[in-house]
């Protein structure tokens, strides 16, 4: 009997050790420098509120940590979509001037590999910028650093929350250099292709309700064939 107990204790210890190695893996760092930082192309920065209650609409399976918004919004609980969530947000520039509306579809990715420090999400942006046109963005995002640095500390905290200042790039592909792919749809972006990077900035997180203070930022490298006035932002007001 004592051998069995020793064996079981050993297995538990080994499992815990392995999980600790994954958690403290020094090679799984947070990405803070955008791959687009070295690009000489003009960049379009679209900011949005990433807390569900501050979005135009947020929906998921209705049983996840983050509650859908607004009230009585239809939940996507069916088997094929229950591991997905949809955000509809107002997009603004760096100074907070509204520029347009974006719909973001996110789904847990089957390419997720915890051994490689990956918690992947396949996401799509469908963006409408009045006066300019539309964009379609494909991204593979990695939330490993976000989970490790914010979600887990909030869970183990006696206050069930996390506060601090965290900025990280979630975009991890599908392009080799870790950027997302962008296709122009209509308007001045029609026919164009470029790259994007999405960044999250978090200052408060609740283990009970999810993000409490979080903003997102999608940076799109504008293609060179964009008209010369491509940097003229059209304000909505």
């Amino acid at each position, binding site marked *: 009997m004592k051998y069995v107990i020793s064996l079981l204790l050993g297995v538990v210890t080994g499992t815990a050790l392995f999980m600790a190695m994954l958690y403290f893996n020094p090679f799984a760092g947070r990405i803070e420098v955008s791959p687009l930082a070295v690009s000489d192309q003009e960049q379009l920065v679209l900011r949005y509120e990433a807390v569900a209650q501050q979005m135009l609409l947020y929906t998921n399976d209705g049983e996840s940590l983050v509650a859908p918004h*607004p009230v009585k919004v239809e939940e996507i609980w069916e088997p*094929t979509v229950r591991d997905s969530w949809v955000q*509809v947000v107002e997009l603004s520039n760096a100074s907070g001037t509204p520029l347009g509306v974006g719909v973001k579809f996110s789904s847990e990715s089957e390419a997720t590999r915890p051994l490689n420090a990956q918690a992947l999400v396949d996401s799509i942006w469908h963006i409408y910028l*009045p006066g300019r046109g539309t964009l379609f963005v*494909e991204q593979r995002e990695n939330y490993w650093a976000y989970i490790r640095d914010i979600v887990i500390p909030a869970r183990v905290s006696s206050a069930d929350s996390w506060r601090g200042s965290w900025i990280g790039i979630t975009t991890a592909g599908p392009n080799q250099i870790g950027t997302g792919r962008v296709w122009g749809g209509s308007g001045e972006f029609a026919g164009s292709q470029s790259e994007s990077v999405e960044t999250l900035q978090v200052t408060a997180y609740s283990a009970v309700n999810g993000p409490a203070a979080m903003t997102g930022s999608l940076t799109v490298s504008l293609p060179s064939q964009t008209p010369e006035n491509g940097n003229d932002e059209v304000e*909505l007001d």
Partner: protein
Amino acid sequence: MFSFGTILGLIGTAALLHFVPPVNQYRERSIVSVQPNGGNQEVFHVNLPVDRVMIGAPGIDKPVPASLRWPVRAGLQGSQVELFKLRNAEDRIVGVASRLAVGGSAPYVEWALHLPARGTIYALLDAMPAAAGGRSGSLRAATREFEPLRGAVRERYVAAADASDGITGRLELAMALVGPDVAPDPAEEEAEIQQ
């Protein structure tokens, strides 16, 4: 025995994480019909109004959901954004989709169809309906399973014969798609969709 157990725990956890996928998206059967030109056709639809998750537009009388607070800004006038649950030919939910309709001097209609287990389709449609009804357009971009495909897309509204079950009609999206090694004939693709 403890050391043996520790090693077993280390190896076992690594093996478990390596061989057991943490995410396994549920899949419905893809209902694709092969066309004579080597391409294929797949039809999706949304049942109205039950599959509409959201409709937002400046000054809209009845937004969905009713508590939606859509921004009323001058730049958004004449535009409408909708979110739907998307169904396959067997009437099963297979994804979610956004539809953007923009009016004004340069109108357009766009769809983004997101099927979590398969990928996403981004289609651009003519703003004005065709004489025969419906709108035609083309695939602008696609991801994952759909990535190598290109072709034509047609949207049409089909009114329900009997609205007793709460469904007044369906918005149908028919795709005629071909792979990269097939030269598409736009006229032929359009004809297939019309059938």
